[in-house]
């Protein structure tokens, strides 16, 4: 056996296959930019009144979630607190009170998390949020409409009945990532997660955002009934933002575990490298 044939036998052949369409890739990266800026500016807006309520109006004595600062008597020190229901946790330095350039700030989320960064700035936080809300909404609508017409969403993303029945057999739950042809399609857990984000989480965060608009309340009063009032809509909006962050963390972990360069390249160029001979772990 020559050296070359030996190496060929040891190194499996890689083949580039078409993975993501151009429009989906554009949608994906526009969404990345919009969601990052919406999250940062959303935290900035939250800081203007770092408390969440259920119902139509604010019951100031009973937020279900809040962040606040307590000053020492001389005012030089600050303690930050975060409350959830009746639980209260000291979160000095991160939530409620944090330092900025050596000075204590009475701020819900710290300045390094917000857009714009640094000191509290509701004015510009709103400008960023309301601009990128349009970017997010238009981008999302293009994705949904083209995905439904082109059947990408139904064919590739929505889980089938069979997918749901075999969901616990998905090898990805055991953190087993195929490098074979199976890696060029969405698997059961991924389909369920993506569908939840695309059809539930993102539309809910858009609609609860609209429900907080006193102008749109006049046009769509039923949205207030759907979400249980403006303050409930604000709470749900915040919860959805947290769920999106949770999704993104899992999504990025899966990218790292399944070959980050290959996956990021596929989302940029559309082509994914697979090893056709790789045996499937699928049942």
């Amino acid at each position, binding site marked *: 056996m020559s050296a070359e044939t030996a190496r060929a036998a040891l190194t499996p052949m890689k083949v580039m296959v078409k993975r993501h369409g151009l429009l989906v890739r554009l949608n994906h990266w526009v969404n990345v930019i919009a969601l990052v800026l919406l999250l940062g500016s959303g935290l900035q*807006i*939250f800081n*203007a*009144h770092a*408390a969440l*309520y259920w119902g*139509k*109006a*604010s*019951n*100031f*004595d009973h937020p279900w979630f809040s962040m606040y600062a307590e000053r020492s008597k001389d005012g030089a020190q600050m303690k930050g607190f975060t409350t959830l229901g009746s639980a209260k946790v000291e979160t000095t330095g991160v939530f409620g009170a944090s330092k900025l350039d050596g000075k204590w700030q009475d701020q819900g989320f710290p300045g390094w998390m917000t*857009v*714009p*960064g*640094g000191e509290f*700035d*509701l*004015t*510009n936080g*709103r*400008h*960023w949020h*309301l*601009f990128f*809300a*349009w970017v997010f909404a238009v981008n999302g609508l293009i994705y949904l409409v083209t995905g439904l017409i082109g059947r990408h969403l139904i064919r590739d993303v929505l889980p089938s009945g069979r997918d749901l029945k075999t969901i616990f057999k998905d090898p990805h739950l055991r953190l087993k990532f195929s490098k074979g042809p199976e890696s060029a399609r969405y698997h059961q857990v991924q389909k369920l997660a993506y569908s939840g984000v695309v059809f539930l989480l993102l539309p809910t965060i858009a609609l609860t955002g609209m429900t*907080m*608009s*006193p*102008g*749109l*309340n*006049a*046009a769509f*009063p039923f949205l*207030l009934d759907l979400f249980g009032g*403006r*303050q409930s809509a*604000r709470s749900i909006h915040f919860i959805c933002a947290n769920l999106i962050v949770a999704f993104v963390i899992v999504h990025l972990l899966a990218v790292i575990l399944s070959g980050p*360069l290959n996956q990021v*390249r596929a989302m*940029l160029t559309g082509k994914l490298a697979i090893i056709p001979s790789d045996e499937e772990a699928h049942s």
Partner: protein
Amino acid sequence: MNRRTWLRGLLAGVGATIAAGCEKVATAPPALKMLKVAEKWNQGAQRAIIGRHALAPEFTEADISRTFKANGTRRPFDEEYNSHLNSGFSGWKLVVDGLVETPLALTLAELRALPSRTQITRHDCVEGWSCIGKWKGARLSALLDQARLKPEAKFIVFHCMDTLGSSKYYESIDLVDARHEQSILAYDMNGAPVSVEHGAPLRLRVERQLGYKQAKYIGRIEAVASLKGIGGGAGGFWEDFGYEWYAGI
């Protein structure tokens, strides 16, 4: 240089630029000018969707907030205001002037005699909180009919008697909102005269917009063709600090 190193370099470069430039870019005037186009999109879209006449949601007596938070000025320090307050606003008159055929000066009794409206509505502060209250006041459209707007009048400016920071508070709305059924000059709140912290003797209610539009301590109403030349020129106290003039979201 192969594609992989090129890509890595690009990503690293973008990352560093974002980290270093975020704060500066986020508050740089050109960036903000671009972002502020969203206000025009929101105004255009909302006006098209909502229509002139759609009402802001109204609530029941049971929904009225026990604590209605007051924001902005809570106790004006202005001498003129305080002398009116001390005399129970007996010598106070609301001035209506600018681009009107018949300038007016109305006492509280005369305002109470105008066609009125009572509404239980939700007040949404730009900060995120909401309170529900019952407001009774003179229909703004009735007042404008009495003063007879000149055709060139495009905006209604509300000059307030309180100084916030270093300048007088003021607000403005266009004729679509000024003519709206729920736009009232409220003299009663929750069945009693509007308290000082909520804007005695008269505050605007323009229910399809945020709280900073609901001008308190109104002393004068002026009809104008343009908002340039009034205050900082942006149409309101907070607008001069960068807030959106159209506050429907």
